[in-house]
């Protein structure tokens, strides 16, 4: 069974009496361990699709099935818990809680899960070592560079070992060197820890590094290519 199954998914926004189709008839499956990028120009529906996969939004029609669970039939209250247990999020920017230190931000999902502090710290220290964040544990987000902030966000996303990490244009606010480093890191996590990544980007440099590229155009699936490394 596939990790993520999207079946004829449509999402239509209504603004006033205008209907905006953001995602139209989208069908795809994503397997565990894949490293997938959603590519497409601005407004093509990447964010909308990631929100649907991440249970932050419900489709207007069609089905989203995650790990065998139909999102539409899961009560809203349970969805928060489902996200906590199965999905890691990385957003474009301002990902972190400004009043918490890097370490506290990274352990946030573990804390929500009720993991004891000692275990939390141990796990986060491991990840910080892996992500090259040692020594920054007690810095506040404001005192970190954009790339460092995104790496802390990655630490938070993968700390609880979710089934899939969703990242919406994680490199959009980074310069090309920082984005390359971030990408390589995600790649490595994908290879070494078998973390499933689905992220969106319209940056060709980023798109080129992915093994699977799903291209979107006006909310429709335009292309779905797999490349062997």
């Amino acid at each position: 069974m596939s990790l993520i199954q999207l079946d004829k998914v449509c999402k239509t926004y209504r603004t006033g009496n205008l209907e905006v189709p953001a995602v139209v008839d989208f069908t795809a499956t994503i397997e565990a361990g894949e490293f997938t990028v959603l590519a497409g120009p601005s407004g093509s529906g990447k964010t909308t699709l990631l929100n649907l996969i991440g249970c932050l939004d419900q489709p207007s029609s069609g089905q989203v099935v995650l790990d065998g669970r139909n999102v539409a039939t899961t009560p809203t209250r349970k969805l928060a818990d489902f996200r906590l247990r199965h999905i890691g999020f990385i957003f474009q920017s301002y990902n972190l809680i400004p009043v918490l230190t890097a370490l506290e931000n990274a352990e946030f999902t573990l804390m929500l899960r009720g993991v004891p502090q000692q275990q939390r710290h141990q796990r986060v220290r491991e990840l910080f070592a892996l992500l090259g964040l040692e020594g920054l544990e007690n810095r506040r987000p404001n005192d970190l560079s954009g790339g460092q902030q995104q790496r802390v966000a990655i630490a938070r996303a993968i700390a609880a070992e979710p089934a899939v990490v969703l990242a919406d244009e994680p490199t959009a606010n980074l310069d090309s060197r920082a984005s390359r480093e971030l990408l390589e890191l995600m790649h490595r996590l994908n290879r070494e820890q078998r973390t499933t990544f689905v992220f969106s980007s319209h940056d060709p440099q980023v798109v080129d590094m992915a093994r699977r590229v799903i291209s979107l155009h006006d909310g429709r699936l335009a292309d779905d290519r797999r490349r062997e490394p």
Partner: protein
Amino acid sequence: MLILAWRNIWRNRRRTLITLAAIALSVTLVQAFHNLSYGVYQSMIAGGVRAGSGHLTIYRKGYVDSRDERLSWRRGDLAEQAAALPGVEAVLPRVYLPGMAQSSRESRGILLTGIDPRAERPINPFLKGLDDTRMIRSLSGRDALVGFRLLKELKLKPGRKFVVTVQNRSGDLASELFRVRGVITTGLKDVDGRLIMVGLKKAAAMAGIGGEIHELAIILDQPRRDRDVGPALEKLIHNRRQLVVIPWDRAMPNLANAIKLDYASQKFIFAIILLIVTIGVVNTQLMSVMERYREFGIILAVGATAGRLRLLVLTESLIIGLSAMLLGSALGSLATLYLSRVGIDLRSFVSESLEFGGVIFDPVLRAAWDFGYMTQIACYVVILSLLAALYPARKAGRIQPAEAMRKI
């Protein structure tokens, strides 16, 4: 989560401090002003019951409402029995007779009051200004204490004689000659212009009701003791059907109502102060939630439940409310301490004494501790700060992460 709440509070230090100060100040104000009026009421009641009815009084039924001098009663050894009760400071028997006073030049309507000078002396504030030589000594002598205004109107001087006429039990007029021994100055028009105090036995004898009294005023060492002493008195008089025990607020309804009214209007103002503060807190909490719209969206997106977020907002408000309550109560206590020790001196604004509800009180207003009320206000404030956060918390819980993420 507590760490998060704590850090969030100090994120906008100035706003938090202003909110905190506003709540604390309202607590301080309400507590200090309440304690001040509590102290003033207490001193008014203390003065009132000592000059008037006592904390508890034994009357004949109907006397309180009619003040009919025919409703006298034989006291027997009731005064001694009452005086023996624990919590009773003094027992003051009194006779009240309306009548006429005549000097060689003038005549006036008066209230002849027969007292037990020895029992009355240390208690009754009317007698405070009198030194020993000006005080009446015996229960049946011809010495009288006269209100200073009455004295003036009768064109009398201390040492001079005058005649008092009252109606006795059988309806005949009885006259007696008295000598002015001392002058009573209270500042109460009614007292200064009508009061004549003489020995109890003399007054009773004039009215032909020897051995009887109208009022047995019982002064307690603490106002609270009425809970024990009241029932004990009831027991003492249970076989004398025509007698009743009446608490001071029924015996002196003017004073009781004046205090009630004053207190009610004060409570109203307190309620408004607290309401305004609450609205202020709702506003700041709402602002702080709206500012963190995106951040809350992220917290929800990564898996926190809406309930958890609501709890966060409530906790923040609770921390502010609790600190403000502690700070406010501390300042309120300091203010009360100052007001009870030093007080507010109104002497430069008013003449010698102040009248309220038919009672004279000291123009230096002093606070008294009302811990029950202070605690109550403290609890209110904490509860209000939680209530004030309820709507903002709901708002935070309703944030849609997908929506919040789109807005920067």
